[in-house]
């Protein structure tokens, strides 16, 4: 090729880089042959302790992902293609996105589903921005029951000049730990700072069920939009956002067959009512026909997007999480509607078992309200107990003092969850280890609770 170009060295193609600005030597290790690199990677992976009996959820959940999901994802036609800019040779990706939109529309009971966002946090932030565009107001209220990372992310996305206020949680009584409706009502009543959107989670970060219909009613009465942050597996058994009047649903799609992999890639779910279709950011795929009238799929309503609209776009999103949306679709079709319900119900059943056993071991629930499969238990000096349980092979959920450092009411809390993959043996192991750490030795009581 050099010869064809009449050159003697490839250096000649870089002569346009000013001499003074040319790079210093690239000081990186030598190339590593595949065999040695494989050993290095295996060694690093082995340093992670993934064999613990885990009760950690907090927004990312262990589930059974049928092997069909990953085997299908490994087809090069899926993962080595890019954005379907040429629809004639991208019908696979386009139809799969349309099917994803349709599956999620069923789950959340809303009509418009974006082709994917980065994760639950970014989807929540985008939902918050949508409410501001749609209402031309500049203030959003977010419940402290929303995942702390989602709240922090939304705060960051609002640095361009929007205002985000946190709605407190009820301090005590039957509704402890859920969104404080009286406080919400007061915050909505501020005439000087009208509210664009109200954001609450179901289940919330502490695993509790929030009064979503009431939150929605209060938001709408104040002219604000209502954003529901949801966990998709729970929607097999919990009322979907569309049923309680949410205008937008956001959430983390990781539970739909996607491995935890220390933070991503995951799947940001973002859905809205038809009325907001021109405000929703991210790609949309629609059904259409080709010149011969044959049914086909195509990216549509592109005038919302950055490559067309530039500084007037609904968002700057370009690369999304398409492969993870595909994973979610394959998961949902493989597991099916009854399977998904069983996943949710079995998780609830395991969690109830866990609650009983932990209470017997000396760790009772912190809140009285109903939950699905995740809840908080009170453990004195939770951080130390948590560390000692790791030594006993148990990952005892999340230390809330670390995750919510500015909420003293959660200082003794451990957030624990169970799913369909949690076994009774793991539950007994957790309780026995906890009992030992707490200095109780009441194993018969635990065994009784398990029965």
């Amino acid at each position, binding site marked *: 090729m050099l010869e064809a170009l009449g050159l003697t060295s490839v250096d000649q193609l870089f002569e346009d880089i000013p001499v003074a600005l040319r790079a210093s030597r690239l000081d990186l290790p030598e190339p590593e042959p*595949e065999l040695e690199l494989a050993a290095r990677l295996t060694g690093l992976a082995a340093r992670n302790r993934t064999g613990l009996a885990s009760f950690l959820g907090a927004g990312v959940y262990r589930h059974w992902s049928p092997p069909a999901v990953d085997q299908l994802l490994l087809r090069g036609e899926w993962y080595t293609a890019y954005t379907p800019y040429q629809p004639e040779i991208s019908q696979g990706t386009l139809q799969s996105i349309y099917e994803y939109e349709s599956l999620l529309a069923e789950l959340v009971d809303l009509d418009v589903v974006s082709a994917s966002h980065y*994760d639950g946090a970014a989807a929540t932030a985008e939902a918050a921005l949508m409410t501001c565009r749609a209402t031309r107001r500049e203030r959003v209220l977010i419940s402290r029951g929303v995942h702390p990372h989602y709240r922090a*992310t939304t705060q960051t996305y609002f640095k361009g000049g929007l205002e985000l206020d946190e709605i407190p949680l009820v301090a005590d009584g039957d509704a402890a730990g859920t969104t404080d409706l009286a406080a919400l009502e007061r915050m909505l009543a501020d005439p000087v700072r009208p509210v664009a959107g109200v954001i609450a989670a179901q289940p919330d970060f502490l695993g509790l069920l929030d009064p979503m219909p009431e939150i929605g009613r209060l938001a709408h009465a104040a002219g604000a939009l209502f954003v529901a942050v949801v966990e998709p597996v729970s929607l097999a058994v919990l009322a979907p956002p569309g049923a309680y009047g949410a205008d937008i649903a956001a959430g983390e799609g990781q539970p739909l067959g996607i491995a935890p992999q220390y933070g991503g890639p995951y799947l940001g779910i973002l859905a809205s009512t038809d009325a907001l*279709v021109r405000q929703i950011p991210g790609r949309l795929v629609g059904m259409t026909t080709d010149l011969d009238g044959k049914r086909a799929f195509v990216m549509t309503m592109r005038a919302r997007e950055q490559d067309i609209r530039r500084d007037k776009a609904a968002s700057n999103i370009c690369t999304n999480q398409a492969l993870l949306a595909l994973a979610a679709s394959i998961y949902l079709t493989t597991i099916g509607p009854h399977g998904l319900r069983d996943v949710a119900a079995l998780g609830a059943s395991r969690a109830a078992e866990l609650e009983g056993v932990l209470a017997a071991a000396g760790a009772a629930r912190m809140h009285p309200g109903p939950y699905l499969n995740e809840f908080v238990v009170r453990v004195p000096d939770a951080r130390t107990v948590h560390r000692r349980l790791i030594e006993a092979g148990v990952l005892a959920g999340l230390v809330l003092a670390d995750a919510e450092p500015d909420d003293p009411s959660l200082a003794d809390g451990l957030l624990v969850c169970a799913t369909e993959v949690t076994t009774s043996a793991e539950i007994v192991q957790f309780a026995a280890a906890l009992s030992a750490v707490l200095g109780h030795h009441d194993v018969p009581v635990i065994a009784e609770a398990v029965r």
Partner: protein
Amino acid sequence: MSVTGERLQPTIFERGRPGRGGGKIPHPPKDALDRLPVGARRVTPAALPEMNELDVVRHYVNLSQLNYAVDTGFYPLGSCTMKFNPKLNEWAARLPGFANLHPMAPDEVAQGTLQLLWELERALAEISGMRAVTLQPAAGAQGELTGILMIREHHRATGQGHRDEVLVPDSSHGTNPATASMAGYRTITIPSAPDGGVDLDAFRAALGPKTAAVMITNPSTLGLFEARIGELLEAVHAAGALAYMDGANLNAILGRFKPGEAGFDVMHFNVHKTFSTPHGGGGPGAGPVGVGETLGPYLPSPRVLREDDGSFRLERPGERSTSIGRLRSFVGNTGVLVRAYAYIRAHGGSGLCEVSDDAVLAANYLKQRLADAYDIPFDRPCKHEFVASAATIKKRTGVRTLDIAKRLIDFGYHPPTIYFPLIVEEGMLIEPTETESVETLDAFADALIAIAGEADTSPEVVLGAPHTAPVRRLDEATAARQPNLRWRPMTGAETPCPD
């Protein structure tokens, strides 16, 4: 013959039949949900399809075959760096120790991944000449937002909060102005000079006390190295503004140009471009951001830290009060970053230099092969990609770049990026990447030259292309006017399912 499979598929909703599927999850006890309050329960079940695993597998295998992909053929999509995705990297990301690690697991449980992330940060800092790197942003566009928000924070902290403008060249990616808007800035567009570089006079005239930042893609989206980059950076800093580099085209300059050394204050990497993590049909990617000294304090939280005893940990919430905060949940698209790490390790320093040398050589070779049949608007060595134009062909024959792109499909290729950057009439942005052989480049050039010939001899063939794809050109106008964005049983009745 079609370059993809030809059999269109019914949707999963048409394939489903009540009662199929099952056998995956044990049945829960009957009373499992009794404790849920009635008002919180779902009343109408979601109408998801019921399918046997065989039907699911066939559906997705058959659908996949309707796609063109790097694994099936040459994909010279400019600005996207569609290079080969080494299979070792897919294997690595799926190692159970990486895949099953919970993102809120305590640091002591996550030492392997934390070490990998820490080393990757160091490697990216070395490659870019930057002081520090965050791996948190999920994609290039989110990296841009990270960078611009850090600049905003810097100006706020130093009493320059009045700076409310961001300058972008007219050849920039759409994400640049969209990012500036998201961060609350006004975008000022700078025209390009006739040589394809930024017009230095217009640039200097636009710079001022209101300028917060300048976003520059280098090499530019025309595939040209910004030869006046030294003057540009000097002018930016003299005006008290900061310089953002869009690293989308880093594949051209590995080992040749380090943006941090040259004076850029911040840049993002697109690991799905330069470091070969798969594009996934639109994503995922990852958009790490490197910063120089000025912006270091504002990096997103949490950072990955190395302790004196050699162990690794994540920064705790609130530990660094100057941080702009979080851009997303957890630490980042770690599974993608594992692949990028493997790629960088496999190539090493010398290999990465060869990547850029070969990418640039391939682009210049292809450009020369096309110079007789197409307009080449900028007659100087390109970097990893170049713009060709069908403006003359269109004038002569009425055949447009869009038609040529569609005709390439019949020849077995994915078309280049077309009509971008917006400033070249009838432009096509061609990026061959370093992983393609000279035989592939020659065959592709022959195809484009043959199509240019067809434009003269049988334009109707080009205008009607593609002829061999599973579908012909689509009715995009109706799709946008009467959007059908989700399946409803009625749709199936109106538009019959194929086969």
